């Protein structure tokens, strides 16, 4: 009985470890784009625990998308708790400014001023080169909503840069 329990625990640990190694890097990049490098690890960790505490998480289809959505939700929670999003994000990239001769401060500021959802959509569109349909599937929102969010984000970014 005890041996059976130990074997189960061991299998579960292995599953968690495999899932973490497979999906955490992309989730960590996504979280870094949403909340900055300082909070990214905490956000991904919390999201991962939420997902893997569900009883049948191993049979979830598209666990990668599921985790990204959980990261997005955690980022929302974090921003609700702290109302200083753009300051923190800009502060988070301070080390890069010392070595980067041409920091695009205006764009950094504009990106940091976007909402979590807008930034998630913009990141997936521009950095992952995802289509609007793919973004909709990843974040579990309608394609039309993605289109609107992306359009509003572009307007906000252009406005901030002029």
């Amino acid at each position, binding site marked *: 009985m005890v041996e059976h329990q130990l074997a189960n625990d061991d299998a579960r640990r292995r599953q*968690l*470890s495999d*899932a*973490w*190694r497979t999906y*955490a*890097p992309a989730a*960590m*990049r996504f979280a*870094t*784009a949403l909340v*900055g*490098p300082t909070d*990214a*690890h*905490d*956000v*991904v*960790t*919390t999201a*991962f*625990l*939420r997902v893997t*505490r569900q009883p049948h998480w191993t049979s979830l289809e598209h666990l990668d998308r599921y985790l990204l959505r959980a990261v997005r939700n*955690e980022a929302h*929670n*974090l921003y609700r*708790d702290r109302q*200083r999003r*753009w*300051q923190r994000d*800009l*502060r*988070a*990239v*301070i*080390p*890069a*400014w*010392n070595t*980067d*001769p*041409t*920091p*695009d*401060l*205006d*764009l*950094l*500021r504009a*990106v940091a001023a976007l909402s979590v959802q807008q930034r998630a959509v*913009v*990141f997936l569109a*521009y*950095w992952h080169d995802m289509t609007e349909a793919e973004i909709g599937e990843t974040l579990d929102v309608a394609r039309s909503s993605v289109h609107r969010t992306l359009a509003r984000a*572009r307007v906000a*970014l*252009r406005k*901030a*840069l002029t």
Partner: protein
Amino acid sequence: MNRDLDSRLKTTFDRIVAKTPEIGDPPTSDTLRLSPETTPSSRLWVAAAAASVAVIGIAGLVAIRAASSDTSDTVVATPPSNVADLPAVTTLHSVVPTPTTVVEGGTAVIQPGEIVCLNAGASEHAVSLCVDELGGVPLDAAVDTDNSFVMPVDPANASHIAAAAKVADALGVDTRAFDPGLLPLGATARGASVYLVIGSNDVPFAS
């Protein structure tokens, strides 16, 4: 413009992603959580509490209506004869909020994004206070200074000069002429109007 924005966005996200932390070991259930988990049982408690409040509220309303209908025909207010006229005494408890941002007349003197916190040898603590409390954008200066002061972002812009004077007055630091030698190569501060050069004395954030 579109192509320019696209490429700049990619570059910006490249910079941000380059700061992605290592994933480390898989988290365990002992790992600290950012926010408490909402469990089905806690949701049940919230629902039960809300239902109780609603029931009590409805019962109260019914009671008030019943009471008012019972006495509507016989309401005669007669003050007791032995009550002296007492002056009304009101104790005022004025609550004075502690400002975390410099404000004047209900409007923030320093708007978020108006200031660039130019770190010229200041402590990390001072720079983070500049960012958190004044909504400043942090930037490392090319050279260090001993004392803190402000200077306009654009020395030819009258509003920047006025803003620098306003910020200097609010923070109790000197105003100096624009000195491009303090700025790192290629840094732009479009949107901001004032450089708050924080020297090694950490003024105005010295503890």
